[in-house]
């Protein structure tokens, strides 16, 4: 090819005009996302929903600004540097290979932005994770194709709506009786999967009365689409108490059996502590010491699990009762320390569980 004189380098006045326009557009986008009334379209039912919205506003504003610059320059360069009919057919563009200064800055600025975004995300995530856990404990269980709910002091399961009192912290333990479901309340900006054999926990504090749909977000079978018909009802304490009392009476004689994935509640009467001790050495001691709670190996020390006044609750925030310990042995649990396998994974029979609970009960 014939040598050509490259056209002169330098940024024309057009470039700076366009840059000014794109800057204005970006600022407009940032203002837009800062004031956009998100809650008009989707109410914020819990405290942290607003934090998640804040994170979204931050990302949407910076993302829009970035996109406006990329797409704007793309469009401007395409128009400004188009080949014209008057150009010779073999005309070539500016022969620039790189510009180390430019490349340095467009590596460093995004990298700094990543640091900023990480800090913002982690802070908001901590707020979501570290909600208080001194309130009501509820369990939600996924079924094909509905959710059921368990409350302390209500026998059996509540199967239509999930009611919660406003302004009381909630610890929600999620598990499943069959396949994986997703427990999502869009108004809470929060979800978690309900996994058979695991108990996962989300914590939140309701702040707004209302009736909010609960939606399944993991495909769970042929009627998955129908799993959006149940509601979370947040209401004043008196209304909640009335609802609660109604279910207490209605379920007065219901069985407290655990979900079917765990195989029903274990009868603890026949537990043998010495058999449990041998079993503990064999099955549990790889992860748990017979020592105070704080002596963590993989899981916590279990010496005082049922009788330590400084730890009235188990890791799943349920009160430390023999039946609840049996529940963890049966269904497993995932928390901040990792995963406690369920009874099938550990190869524990129902009698084994009864023996282990008797042994743990014997440790004072």
């Amino acid at each position: 090819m014939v040598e050509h004189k490259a056209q002169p380098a330098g940024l024309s006045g057009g470039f700076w005009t366009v840059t000014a326009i794109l800057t204005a557009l970006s600022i407009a986008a940032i203002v837009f996302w800062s004031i956009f009334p998100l809650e008009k379209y989707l109410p914020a039912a819990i405290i942290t929903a607003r934090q998640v919205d804040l994170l979204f506003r931050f990302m949407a504003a910076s993302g829009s600004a970035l996109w406006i610059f990329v797409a704007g320059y793309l469009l401007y360069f395409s128009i400004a540097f188009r080949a014209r009919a008057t150009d010779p057919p073999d005309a070539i563009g500016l022969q620039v290979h790189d510009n180390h200064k430019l490349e340095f800055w467009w590596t460093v600025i995004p990298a700094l932005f990543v640091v900023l975004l990480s800090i913002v995300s982690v802070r908001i995530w901590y707020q979501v994770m570290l909600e208080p856990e001194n309130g009501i404990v509820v369990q939600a269980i996924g079924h094909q194709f509905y959710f059921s709910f368990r409350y302390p002091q209500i026998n059996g399961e509540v199967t239509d709506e999930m009611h919660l009192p406003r302004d009381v912290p909630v610890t929600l333990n999620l598990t499943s009786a069959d396949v994986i479901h997703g427990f999502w309340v869009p108004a809470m900006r929060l979800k978690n999967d309900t996994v058979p054999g695991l108990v996962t926990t989300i914590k939140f504090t309701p702040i707004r009365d209302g009736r909010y749909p609960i939606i399944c977000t993991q495909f769970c079978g042929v009627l998955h689409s129908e799993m959006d018909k149940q509601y979370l009802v947040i209401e004043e304490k008196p209304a909640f108490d009335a609802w609660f009392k109604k279910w207490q009476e209605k379920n007065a004689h219901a069985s407290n059996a655990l979900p079917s994935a765990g195989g029903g509640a274990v009868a603890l009467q026949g537990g043998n502590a010495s058999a449990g001790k041998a079993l503990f050495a064999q099955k549990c001691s790889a992860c748990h010491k017979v020592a105070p709670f704080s002596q963590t190996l993989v899981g916590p020390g279990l010496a005082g699990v049922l009788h330590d006044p400084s730890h009235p609750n188990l890791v799943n925030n349920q009160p430390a009762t023999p039946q609840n310990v049996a529940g963890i042995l049966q269904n497993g649990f995932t928390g901040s320390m990792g995963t406690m396998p369920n009874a099938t994974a550990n190869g524990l029979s129902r009698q084994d569980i009864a023996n282990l609970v008797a042994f743990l009960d014997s440790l004072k």
Partner: protein
Amino acid sequence: MSVAAVHPGGIADHIHPEPQGFVRRYVFSLDHKIIGIQYIITAFVFFMLSGLLAEVIRTQLLNPNGGFVSSDTYNEVYSVHGSAMVWLVIIPLLTGGFGNLVFPLQIGARDVAFPWLNMLSFWIFPVSGLMLFASFLMGAPTAGWMEYPPVSLQGAAGTSMWCAAIFLVGVSSTMTGINFVVTILKMRAPGMTFTRMPLFCWGQFATAPLLMIATTALAAALAALFIEREFGVPFYDPTKGGSPVMWQHMFWFYSHPAVYIMILPAFGIISEVLPTFSRKPIFGYKLIAFSSMAIALAGFMVWAHHMFTSGLAPFLQLPFMILTFVIGVPTGIKIFSWTATLFGGKIHFSTAMLFALGFIGLFTLGGITGIFLAAIPFDLHVHGTYFIVAHLHYVLVGGSLMGVFAGMYYWFPKMSGRLLNETLGKWHFWLFFLGFNGTFIPMHWLGMLGMPREVATYDPQFAFWNRFESVASYLMAFSILLFFVNVLWSIRNGKRSGPNPWGGRTLEWQIPSPPHYYNFKHIPTVYGLPYDFAQPLPYKGLDEELTDSPPAVAAGAH
């Protein structure tokens, strides 16, 4: 017998006798170009089928109560749509298809390192594709392309067929990966150092190890799922001691790198098209090349960002979030470099260029929403919703598929010796661009407002935007119909292209279209990067390529 030139890797240069007969030439061919075209044709057939499935999905969603097909059929349809688009369309098009067709030419090789392996890996692909579609006959899988157990353990018999089909296509991918790695390492023309290699080759070189390594994790997961379904060995069923979350780890250990398998070669295509039609060197060659490798490497370390709601221990989630943010940096470098490539160019708006420009705009949007999704608190809101559907289609359609179309308009002359019709091509681009955005933009807010994915019916409050999307999706389908018409018409009637219709400077444009089965009469020697438009071509030994003289190495010479 003439003295054979020796490649830098020490492999003797020789030409096999030209295959005779239709079957050896075009069916069981060993020629990388024919195999590439076979991949492209087969993948486009599957593309048509799974595109039709996509229109079944959109037609069902015209109404909140569905009613076009039953829920069960609908679940089968979107599961096969997703699986086929990923494993039978995008991956084969970008690796087996364009990879085979183009990169051996670009590095100045006569073929890939293992032609028989190449033929084998191609022929496994249509077989596994037919198996996947045949699963409809026995009850197709219904749990989406991810097939999470335990629900996939309950799926109809076709779910096992799905496992077998995806396992096989994975075997095919793995073999292609090995073949490409060896070819690029050992068969570059003299002087074709890594820092002179065209960026499409860099894209393939970053992708091939992913194909080799990641696919094995998927194969193991699929084998376990198959064994559990057919023989009852409990890998995943929690009631028998299995772990359903293990599937998710193994699946995403493959499927996240697979995202890069589906985008890095498209990055490569864009990096070829942009300089050619801007008449400018690509901006920041080295950073583009190395950022591909960085993305490929980091791609192995972020899989659990698909699992923030799966019940992982919280402290395990944190590094996955931050590493995913970090991937945004090399990706951003590429986007900025492409945009800067346009600056001061002489831009020719061919259809290939339009698709490349569209790619940058739409992929950037998909990349930005990807950053949103990596932020755990926001992911806990939109995971499993239509927001994810929007994000993944911006990356895979706005990104990968636009890259495929750019590649088709760019290299069709090299395949056929004829140009695709540019007028039809521009209609294709603009209708596709409008239809695509109309279909997928509203999904962002539908997902945020509460529409979960994989549903056959939905809350009536979302009816308006779903109808809007469905109508836009018909426009997109129509534009793709124009593309097929264009290909079928141009293959017989298109304008003859000559060897180098676009003024391309990489090696494949310096030889006839279509090339001889042995590619190069003389293996050229390379002296520099291909993108210096002001300089003479950096190759020696190409003088006879466009003449009638016979190849320097006699056929059959060893």
